[in-house]
Every structure is written in structure tokens, then in C-alpha cells.
């Protein structure tokens, strides 16, 4: 009997599938370049208090309090914590703010070099502002009040999200920010058109090419809805028929 049991157990074990780990369970780790001196905008908030882990010579302060590895950072009572970060060391170091799913607010801006790197995949964000070229990941499964991506190239991908736009910046994909595929823009336009917009806020995409132009027939119904909801909508000229794309120059008059 024991021999039979052993054989059965091994057989089941050999066929067990190990799925990909939920990215929200992964550590929310930010890598700080050697010699980084605090600069730029770095704001964050959490769904609950998080345990911070720091490696290397990185230092972290919030509102005049220095946090050491193992300390607990409370959830901000306002919208966010403002982070003061330095790394006087000769090597890169890291700060980990608990798990990615605990991050609800991320505003890292005004940094032109990839001196801070991180992967946002799995974060449960309601606010996403990135103007830092080293931050990458998949924008997916979020409930966003603001999406602002500035000059980050194609470092992020777009899945499916819900929008409840309450922020004056609305949705901005500006500078050289670009998703690689037309399918991502189809989903973005659909999500934005089906979201809620609580004020006169914009939907702006400034960069785009013929290669990632969402086909007009795939998006026209959502565009008609978006024009009613976003206060103004801006699309790349490369998406127009006059620029080689599929959108008619009268796209803004389409009502379905």
C-alpha cells in the first residue's frame, strides 16, 4: 500500500502546474542609483501601513522622520507622502514599500534620467503620474482617477482599467510616451469612454505612429462617447488619414 501511495503522490506532483505569481504580491521595490541626491517629485501612498526594507546606503525621510529598514510607514492621512531619498553610496540601493498591491498612489516626476527604477505591474493604483524614464510595467486592473505619463517612451504597456476621472489632468500621454500596439489604444479609448468624468478634464495623446494607430472602425463608437465625456480630446496627427492613419479628419464630429 505504501508503495502505491508513494507512486500516486509522485505522479500528481509531477503534473502539478505552478502558475505565475500574482504581480500584486511582488515587492514594491524602487532601485536608487548610486550617488542620487534628492530631487524631483516623489509621492506615494498605500492602502495600509507598509513595512519598508532598505538596502545599500539609501536613506528615506518623510515629513522630517527618517525611516530605517524594518520600520512601518503609515498610510498618509492626505493624498500622499512626499519622499526624500538620497543614496550617497558608490553602489545602487533599494527601497521596498511592502507589496505592490499595497501601493495606491504614485507620482514620480521631474526626473529626466533613469535614476530611480521600478516596476509598477500589480500595483493597485488610483493615481498614476510618471515622468521618470526608469519606471516600467503594465497598467492593468487599476481604478484610476488620473493617468499622466510624460516622456517615458514605450516603457509601459496598457491592459484594461477603469477610470473615474476626478483630477484636472485627466488622461495625459504626452511627450514621447507611446504604447507599442494599436490594441492597447483601442482598450484605452474604450476604458476612457466608459469611465466617469466628473469635470472638464482632458484626454490627450500627443505621440503616435501609423503602426500603433487604432483602426477607426474599432474605436469610432467609443470616440463618440469620449468626445461627450472628456472636455477635450487630442490625438496624434499620424492617426488621421491625412497622416497615414485610419481616422477621418472629421473624427471629432462623429456621433455614432
Amino acid at each position, binding site marked *: 500500500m505504501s508503495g502505491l501511495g508513494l507512486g500516486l503522490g509522485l505522479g500528481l506532483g509531477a503534473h502539478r502546474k505552478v502558475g505565475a505569481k500574482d504581480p500584486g504580491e511582488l515587492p514594491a521595490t524602487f532601485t536608487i542609483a548610486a550617488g542620487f541626491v534628492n530631487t524631483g517629485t516623489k509621492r506615494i501612498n498605500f492602502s495600509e501601513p507598509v513595512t519598508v526594507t532598505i538596502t545599500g546606503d539609501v536613506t528615506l525621510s518623510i515629513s522630517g522622520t527618517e525611516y530605517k529598514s524594518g520600520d512601518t510607514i503609515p498610510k498618509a492621512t492626505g493624498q500622499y507622502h512626499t519622499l526624500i531619498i538620497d543614496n550617497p553610496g558608490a553602489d545602487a540601493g533599494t527601497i521596498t514599500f511592502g507589496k505592490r498591491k499595497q501601493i495606491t498612489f504614485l507620482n514620480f516626476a*521631474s526626473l529626466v534620467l533613469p535614476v530611480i527604477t521600478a516596476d509598477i505591474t500589480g500595483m493597485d493604483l488610483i493615481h498614476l503620474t510618471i515622468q521618470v524614464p526608469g519606471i516600467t510595467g503594465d497598467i492593468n486592473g487599476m481604478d484610476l482617477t488620473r493617468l499622466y505619463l510624460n516622456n517615458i517612451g514605450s516603457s509601459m504597456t496598457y491592459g484594461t482599467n477603469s477610470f473615474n476621472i476626478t483630477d484636472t489632468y485627466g488622461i495625459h500621454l504626452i511627450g514621447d510616451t507611446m504604447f507599442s500596439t494599436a490594441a492597447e489604444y483601442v482598450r484605452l479609448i474604450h476604458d476612457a469612454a466608459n469611465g466617469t468624468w466628473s469635470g472638464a478634464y*482632458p484626454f490627450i495623446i500627443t505621440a503616435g505612429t501609423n503602426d500603433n494607430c487604432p483602426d477607426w472602425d474599432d474605436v469610432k463608437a467609443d470616440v463618440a462617447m469620449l468626445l461627450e465625456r472628456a472636455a477635450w480630446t*487630442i490625438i*496624434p496627427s499620424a492617426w*488621421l488619414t*491625412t497622416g497615414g492613419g485610419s481616422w477621418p479628419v472629421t473624427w471629432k464630429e462623429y456621433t455614432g
Partner: protein
Amino acid sequence: MYYIIKNGNQVLHMDMAEPNTVGTRYELLWFDTEAEMLQYIEDNNLDIVEVENEID
């Protein structure tokens, strides 16, 4: 070209863009030059209520 998005006497947004790339549920006005745009705002006593000048 330069453009203004206008709601009554309020300028909600002004910027540069290529023609046919802007759609809005408000009034949209195009100008060849920035000077013409600013002159129009002055001549019509428009209030600029735009707030998005830098990230906050």
C-alpha cells in the same frame, strides 16, 4: 497652429497642435500665430482658467 478651447468667456485650454487633432464639446478656435491668439483673448476679455501648467 495655436488653439483655444473656450467655454463662454473662459479659456479652458490653449496650446499648439496640428489641425484636425483636437476634438472638444466646447468651442474650438484656431490661430496661425500665438500673437493672434493672445490678441483674441485680450480683445474679447476672456478669462484664462486653465490650471495645467506643471505637474502637481
